[in-house]
């Protein structure tokens, strides 16, 4: 068990970043690799990217975090430095069953970072604290 990505997944994200910078699209072999490593999460995460559901929130202190709008309309605060997402899939598949590396929301945040596609939002330091603590008004 680990809260960081295995080397092969990290390398794949680096390849995606490089490839997307050069051609502004993902070649089939990288899409297949995504599917192989992350399973059904890969397509669902790409779908979240298509819907522009990922926002990188930052505050004047320099603290950053990703917020992902799920299909159900729920907003999830995801940590990528050490995997955490409050969604039910993360609890079940990653924490409880240990059958997955991460959920589609965290993968979408990783892909957004690699492809530079996330929406940007600036909040105050106090609001950032509430978001990180899971106590923002939009969480309830």
């Amino acid at each position, binding site marked *: *068990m*680990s*809260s*960081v990505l295995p080397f092969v997944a990290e390398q794949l994200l680096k390849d995606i970043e490089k490839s997307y910078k050069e051609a502004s699209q993902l070649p089939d072999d990288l899409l297949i690799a995504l599917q192989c490593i992350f399973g059904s999460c890969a397509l669902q995460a790409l779908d979240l990217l298509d819907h522009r559901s990922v926002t990188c929130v930052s*505050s*004047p*202190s*320099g*603290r950053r*975090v990703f917020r992902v709008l799920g299909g159900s309309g*729920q*907003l999830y*605060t995801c*940590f990528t*430095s*050490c*995997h*955490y*997402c*409050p969604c039910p899939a*993360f*609890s*079940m598949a990653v*924490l*409880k069953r240990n059958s997955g590396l991460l959920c589609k929301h965290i993968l979408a945040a990783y892909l957004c970072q690699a492809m530079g596609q996330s929406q940007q939002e600036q909040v105050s*330091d*106090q609001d*950032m*604290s*509430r*978001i*990180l*603590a*899971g*106590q*923002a008004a*939009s*969480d*309830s």
Partner: protein
Amino acid sequence: MADILEAVFKRHGCLNSQPQTGDQSVFCNRSTECSSVVVAGERGISRALLFLAAVTAAADLDLKVLFYTHTAIQKFPVPVNETMTDLKPDSLKKIKFVYRRSLEELLLDVASQHELASGAAASAPSLVLVDGLDSYLHGIGVGGGGGSGGGSGVGSGGSRKDEMSTTAHLAALLMDTSSFLTRIHEEMADSRGMERGAVIPCRVIASYHSDVEAMTADPVLGVLDRYFPTRCTLVKDAGSSGGGDEFAHEWQVYLSGTGVRHGAANELEWYLVVHANGAMEFSPITKPVAPRNPDQQMERV
């Protein structure tokens, strides 16, 4: 590697090796991810070990320490004057004790560290200690739930699945915060023209109360192991003599997990004697050298 705990074991025991104040050679790993530890064992001994870590880090290693605890510390849980004869009261000022009664308060305080640290990097802690994660996670003294969408705030009535998610949230927030504080220290080093290699990453050491029998099946401890690369397990030795002191208790201390240093087998297990006055004395368990393969011996003959 649990370098700060290792420094504690060596400082308070038969080795009694005292580093020079601010000595950085004890920091064998300069990564936050590889140096954070969860201490699993009985509540009293875990709290005493965390307190010892706080005093050692502040006095010997010149680190700023943030110590979260659920209940106020009324008196020193460990007499430190015996092993730290040169302890100055000023050293203890580097330790900031923060009492947080509920999980929501703890989460918000940890989450707001970036507000205090940015622009005042000199005051940013290099060691964050959390005493009694179980007190927060199992809802002891917690007023109720809250923040459902954020996955936090499970009170005593929360389900096991929610408890695991809440545990993951707290652990991930601690790790993410320590990464941020490390970045603040690095930026300060850059602005002062110092090498980044001289920066001590922020570490997290948290204690979690669990019975030895329940540890293997405890899903919360399993989640903590996912985020904390090193586990320090404290097991009471039922048949111990306490080194001739009839009121003393003896413990075995095990370091395990992905964060432990390879090839350091002799530093992974320690004896701990807690004397009648509460003083803690560590000594390494030296393993006998494995006998040579008999076949190889035969070949030589």
